[in-house]
């Protein structure tokens, strides 16, 4: 849809008339605010798919090459820097590092474009814990528990839910429940608590984060062969409230319907978090106005001298003992060959498969969930009947996952304008179809969808919306479908082929900061071991 000259003219006349009559506050139902359509650079991505790149015009050398600047690539680079490796370079296709953790900023606030929080890490997530200490987010230790900077912990209240026209605190419904609902909810959460506390004979938790440290007990791994819905059916839990809550959580963490989520992954969402802290509860999360863009930004700042942006890596291969990385420089429109002693390939698996010649192992059934993220700038914070504004605001009946408030961590007693980050996983259509829709539909289509959903949830937002910026994620996250996690494909894809080493949260089957960090750090340590570079593992 393009704006015709006539509508534009009519619009400006109406606008002038509105100003003239002093009725500027009035907003027509059709009027859409300005905004931009953004997303992972589809042109660069598709050129990669089509594979037409000029041959390299020059050859460069370094010790370690890192391909991809998402959290996995940044974590690999961080580990190298920590170990004193100096000759490493990180090549990023986009103009900014951070991957899913990238963020935006306008005059009102910084805001996330994707990932927006990090839970208090589990005790076994030693690498992340160390990173948080280095970043000053963990400020000390008391009785073996980390002390977190209180300003970076999500302020109370964290979440609220709109149901039957009233906001209640928390995301699990507490009112209007039938006996079945109550029974099933209690039974479900009790079972999750059981899973959370379970350890195997070797002392490994049933569900660990990083998931590589989880128990391999057969009855647990068997959960990966069925879907979350099948597992709930087997338990006999049919409460629509419980099922809707589980659906919300599966879409929230995996962008995928519970019928298509591995039960192992589904349970991991509820039973995997065992964090504890000296100065907060274990279920608190860390967050920032720009979401995980804060973490990505802090990491990238330290590594700035090593990061090369706008570099589309189109081929990675090993030549004898060397790794050869060919990339296209978007600025000079020339290709460059980088020859390294080792390479960490930290791209999503669907990219890695194309880059690595000879194909990386396990070129199997990796699927990706498409997401839409909108950043909505409003004149004043929304309210509504019942419980007041929280950080995360969810409507029981909305197709979206709700919105988080960018200025929630602020200390202003009366925040005025703010930015609401609105999330929609396109989980109710097949991923490929959803991706096509995502690319085909114009900005106005998505803006209208976001506006209508927000006003339905918060009628008080009518007339306050100043911008709606849309961000499209075609391959937002890996879909942990049944079988993906424990049928061996994942591990096969992560297996190093020296001098090539592989890193990405895809290799865990779950798009989580800690998993990306684990694989990035692991791959960097494997590379350093390969190069006989002394280092202390951050993972154990």
């Amino acid at each position, binding site marked *: 849809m393009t704006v015709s000259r006539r509508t534009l003219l009519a619009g400006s006349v109406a606008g002038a008339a509105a100003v003239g009559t002093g009725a500027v506050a009035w907003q027509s139902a059709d009027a859409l605010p300005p905004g931009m359509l953004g997303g992972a650079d589809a042109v660069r991505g598709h050129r990669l798919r089509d594979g037409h790149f000029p041959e390299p015009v020059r050859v460069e050398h370094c010790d370690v090459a890192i391909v991809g600047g998402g959290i996995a690539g940044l974590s690999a680079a961080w580990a190298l820097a920590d170990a004193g490796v100096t000759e490493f370079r990180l090549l990023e296709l986009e103009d900014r590092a951070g991957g899913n953790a990238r963020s935006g900023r306008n005059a009102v606030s910084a805001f996330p474009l994707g990932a927006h929080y990090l839970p208090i890490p589990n005790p076994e997530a030693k690498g992340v814990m160390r990173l948080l200490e280095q970043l000053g987010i963990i400020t000390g230790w008391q009785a073996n528990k980390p002390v977190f900077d*209180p*300003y970076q*912990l*999500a*302020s*109370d*209240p964290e979440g609220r839910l709109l149901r039957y026209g009233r906001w209640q605190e928390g995301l699990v419904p507490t009112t209007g429940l039938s006996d079945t609902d109550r029974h099933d909810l209690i039974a479900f959460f009790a079972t999750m608590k059981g899973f959370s506390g379970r350890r195997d004979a070797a002392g490994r938790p049933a569900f660990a984060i990083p998931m590589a440290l989880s128990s391999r007990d057969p009855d647990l791994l068997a959960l990966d062969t069925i879907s979350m819905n099948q597992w709930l059916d087997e338990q006999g839990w049919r409460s629509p409230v419980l099922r809707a809550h589980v659906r919300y959580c599966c879409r929230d963490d995996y962008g995928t319907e519970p019928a298509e989520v591995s039960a192992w992954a589904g349970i991991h969402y509820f039973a995997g978090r065992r964090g504890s802290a000296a*100065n*907060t*509860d274990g279920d*608190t999360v860390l967050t920032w106005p720009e979401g995980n863009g804060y973490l990505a930004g802090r990491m990238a700042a330290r590594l700035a001298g090593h990061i090369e942006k706008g570099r589309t890596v189109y081929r990675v291969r090993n030549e004898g003992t060397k790794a050869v990385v060919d990339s296209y420089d978007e600025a000079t429109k020339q290709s460059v060959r980088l020859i390294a002693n080792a390479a960490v390939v930290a791209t999503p698996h669907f990219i890695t498969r194309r880059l690595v010649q000879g194909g990386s192992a396990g070129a199997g059934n990796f699927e990706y969930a498409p997401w839409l993220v909108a950043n909505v700038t409003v004149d004043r914070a929304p309210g509504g009947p019942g419980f*007041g504004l929280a950080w995360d605001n969810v409507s029981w009946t909305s197709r979206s996952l709700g919105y988080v408030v960018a200025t929630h961590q602020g*200390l*202003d*007693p*009366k*925040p*005025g304008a703010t930015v609401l980050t609105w999330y929609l996983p396109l989980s109710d259509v097949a991923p490929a179809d959803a991706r096509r829709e995502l690319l085909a539909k114009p900005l106005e289509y998505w803006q209208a969808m976001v506006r209508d959903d927000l006003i339905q949830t918060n009628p008080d937002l009518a007339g306050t919306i100043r911008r709606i910026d849309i961000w499209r994620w075609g391959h937002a996250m890996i879909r942990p479908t049944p079988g993906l996690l424990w049928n061996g494909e994942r591990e096969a894809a992560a297996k190093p082929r020296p001098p090539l080493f592989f890193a990405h949260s895809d290799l865990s089957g779950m798009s989580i900061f800690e998993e990306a960090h684990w694989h990035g750090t692991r791959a960097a340590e494997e590379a350093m071991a390969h190069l006989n570079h002394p280092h202390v593992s951050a993972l154990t």
Partner: protein
Amino acid sequence: MARDDPARGFGGTRAGAALLASAFVVATCGLVYELLAGTLASYLLGDSVTQFSIVIGTYLFAMGVGSWCSRYVKRGELQVFVRVEVLIAAIGGGSAAVLFLLFDRVQDFRLPLYGLVLAIGALVGLEIPLLMRILKDRLEFGDLVAKVLTFDYVGALAASLLFPLLLVPHLGLMRTGFLFGLLNVAVAIALIAMLPDRRRLRGELVGAILVAIALVVGFAASERLQRFAEVAAYGDPIVYAASTPYQRIVVTKRGSDLRLFLNGNLQFSSRDEYRYHEALVHPVLSRVATPQAVLVLGGGDGLAVREILRYPTVRSVTLVDLDPAMTALFTRSGMLAGLNNHAFSDPRVHVVNADAFRWLKANRRRFDAVLVDFPDPTNFAIGKLYTVSFYRELARAMGPRAVASIQSTSPLVAPRAYWTVATTLEAAGLFSRGYHVYVPSFGEWGFHLASPAPIGAAGPLPTGLQFLNAVTDRLAFAFPPDMARRPTPVNRLDNQVLVREFEAEWARVEG
């Protein structure tokens, strides 16, 4: 023409008496609505002379308009009269409720106010001319004028006596409105009932019954409506009201008693605020050897600063209050600046309009005494100002022997909330000592002293205090069992237990 008149056959002395009685009722009602509008206007807008004059003038003018318009009623006077009664019942009866509900929600309150006054006045103005015409065939002209006007004036006397003596004190403005609306509608229904051919007025009857039901519901729901219309709760005439980006400021005055309300919550009454502010300030400053630099967080009314300036050693007072409208009001308004002894005009006082938390985080100065006078933690935004993170920033702003006091709500009503402040201060590494005083307009009220060093006994107090002396200072630190310290959690940004406790404990009292 006569065939169309539903009043045909409406005769006899019974009907005549009924019509004269209705002249009495409508006169009473008419004056009550006028008094309601005048009272409401002076109550909500202040300056009762102006408000009453304009309302009475407008109302009388509108009555004239109504009388003039009666000439356009060519036939069916009784039917029109019944309709007018039903309309007055609806508009006049609901006027007080509507005005209360609109007060906070409209840009200019005078628009709905005078709109309603004009509408009611015009309708009331129609009543007497119509009545006279209905009665004109039954009475000789001289008798007619004498009788109708007599009932009219007696009705006015009744209204003007009933209104201040009985109605306002016992029913309140809203219910008075609804009650007199019911009287108007009763007149309409009674007249219809007395008609021989009442089917012709079936539409009017249905309308009258619907209005009657609405008025009864309104009367019954008045208390709930009052709660909606927060201004109705102030109880005293409003002399100043303003909405700032941060809060609604309302000042009321009855006699010599000035009261400040922020968002409907009483901040002080000029009758007993000395108890509160002496208790906030002197236990702190008398425990600092030579207080020079003093910080006040909140307290935009300047009353705490007035107490601080009693100490000749004080060289500077920094007051950080969010709302520039508050500090400006208490600087410029002669009446209010008189209360704080023109503290904001003192060269030692520096007013900073900023959010206290952000200001404190950025602050690098150290103070000898700090007074923390925030509103009660009624929401999560204010709750942040009572967290351990805030008190850590506070501790950074305190010299090694500095003392602070913190307004901490009522230890009698909300003992868990009150002692949570103590636990939280201690978690921030400060020593704390709770104390409480009785402030009649608040009830039993609590504070905490906080200091990086152990807190000792009070030093000499300034002269001229009305409440605090060596004995009352010592007594304030004793807590009877019903307010005694109990184990409480630490209030943090990420748990905000204080807001939840505060709400639960106050809800128990307020029901």
